[in-house]
């Protein structure tokens, strides 16, 4: 079980993630949704302790299965209790290492002998659907590479599985297969899973809970079914509406006017107010807190 309280991440003076809190039960999946720049990737990297130079976790508590997930603990359990699936499998696999060896490396790092590591790696790869364990990444298709990435993440049965936009870099036809693989892996390991995505639709279909992020803050949280049926935050609504749908009425797609703000140029009050169709006067000055699963002055009045 993963518990995140008031997580904040800063890079110098710029706030990238501001007071994010959520919890994920073992075996459940949370979909963390937002546009690029919303801080979603930064937030999960902070969970894994993989922030880059100059970016630090400035506040908040994270605990996994009851005990705090400190940097010290992370250094020991990364790869074992915490698994990470990266976004672009062409970049996250070492181009000079065979697929089997890359999976075996996880075992080796955590004390497994060479022969056994190899055996387990080959078996695991076969299980996720990659038979060519002696292949190099460039010899595999995008989908196969991501399967290797998933194998690496689940090899030691993690308690926390983080998937950073695992299907974004893949063909649409392959996305479904990979999602299926991810879900079955999650069920089998019983890990608390956080899946980051910019695709609310995808998340709503597969995740148990959804958390929507905008400009570093959570704007809406709740069960996936509830959010996709009745989104309360204007941003969430707009996200759902702007997705093209088969069989929908013709006409121009609704677009959210404007652009997501750069972290260093965050609007005052509610960060979404310049683009919000329901903006009130107080939205420009007072930042709404997450109340009852939504952070919006307009929604609070309903």
């Amino acid at each position, binding site marked *: 079980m993963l518990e995140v309280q008031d997580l904040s991440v800063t890079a110098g003076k710029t706030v990238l993630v501001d007071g994010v809190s959520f919890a994920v039960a073992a075996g459940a999946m949370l979909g963390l949704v937002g546009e690029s720049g919303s801080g979603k990737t930064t937030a999960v990297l902070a969970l894994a302790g*993989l922030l880059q130079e100059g970016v630090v976790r400035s506040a908040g508590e994270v605990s996994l299965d009851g005990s705090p997930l400190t940097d010290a603990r992370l250094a020991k359990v990364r*790869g074992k209790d915490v698994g990470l699936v990266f976004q672009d499998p062409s970049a*996250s696999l070492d181009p*000079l*290492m065979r697929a089997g060896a890359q999976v075996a490396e*996880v075992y080796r*790092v955590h004390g497994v002998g060479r022969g056994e590591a190899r055996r387990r790696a080959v078996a695991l790869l076969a299980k996720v659907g990659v038979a060519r364990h002696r*292949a190099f990444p460039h*010899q595999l*298709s995008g989908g196969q590479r991501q399967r290797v990435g998933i194998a690496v993440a689940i090899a030691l049965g993690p308690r926390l599985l983080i998937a950073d936009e695992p299907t974004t870099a893949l063909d649409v036809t392959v996305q479904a297969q990979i999602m299926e693989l991810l879900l079955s892996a999650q069920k089998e390991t019983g890990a608390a899973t956080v899946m980051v995505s910019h695709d609310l639709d995808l998340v709503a279909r597969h995740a148990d809970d959804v958390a929507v992020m905008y400009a570093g803050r959570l704007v809406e949280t709740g069960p996936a079914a509830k959010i996709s049926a009745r989104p309360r935050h204007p941003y969430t609504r707009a996200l759902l509406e702007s997705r093209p749908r088969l069989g929908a009425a013709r006409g121009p797609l609704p677009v959210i006017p404007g652009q997501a703000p750069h972290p260093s140029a965050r609007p005052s009050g509610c960060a979404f107010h310049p683009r919000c169709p329901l903006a009130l006067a107080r939205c420009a000055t007072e930042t709404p807190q997450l109340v009852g699963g939504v952070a919006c002055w307009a929604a609070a009045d309903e």
Partner: protein
Amino acid sequence: MATASLKRPDASRARPAVPTWLLWTVAVWAVRLAVTVLGILTLLFALLHLSGDPAAVMVGPGGSAEDLAKVHAQLGLDRPFLDQYLAFLGDVARLDFGDARGTGEAALPAVLAKLPLTLQLVAATLVVSVAVGLPLGVLAAARREGTLGRIIAGAAALGQAIPNFVLGLVLLLVFALWLGWLPSYGSTTPAHTVLPVITLALFTLARVVLLTRAGVIEALSQDFCRAVVAKGGGRSRVLWRHALPNAFPPVLAFLVTDTGYLLSGTVLVEQLYAYDGIGRGLVIAINEQDYPTVQATVFTVAVIVVAVSALGDVLGRVADPRVGRESAG
């Protein structure tokens, strides 16, 4: 075979003794060798025959009129140019480059006798450059913000700039003449190789350090290095088992092209230290107007260059499997 085919049915399918791609590669390299060697030698041949009297060049200064006439006839300089060229090609095919002036012995064997010393020098240079250069480069990349990293990078930049014969003179002065730690001239003992190797190696070493450093920095910025940390790997593993191997292919490519530079450099270094390899032999030859030896040396060098290039190609594929045959998508 019967038992084998029960377990692996496709093993009974006949496989060629030597894979086709290997044959093809060898054929390509054989052609390259021929073209390179012939190209260079033809160039020399043209130069010789189109600029004044070839007989005079072959005989050298101090040759009498009879010598000139004899060589004139030997070379068949009265015959049409094409005939002469074909005769020349025949000589090359038989590896006959004439006789060395002074000794009167066949030119090519004499050059080949000195070849091992030169190869020792070049090989030692390459080994030193890799064995010392790669770790220093990794270190320079890992500590690039700190003092050590900057010192290494700075020293390497300086090392690239010092001309090898200048360095040789300095080393000779300091270590051989002033301190007396190492012998100055000659090539008889292993100690005689130390200064020549250092002199020859500095540029290559410096460049390897800088290339490795750049490659490692680049690799570290990529996702796959972060992925290793996500697996639980430590800094050391990321640096040495992932960043360095990925930084290596360009270094290898550089080393292959650097061989040309090394062979040129060995001429200067051998001359400076009176080290008896083919480089010094070449300088002696030109001073004695010994054209056959010059030609034989050029031939030998051409073969070495092609051989190294071929070797580099093979090693390149091992170092970076992305080069070449398969690729799925």
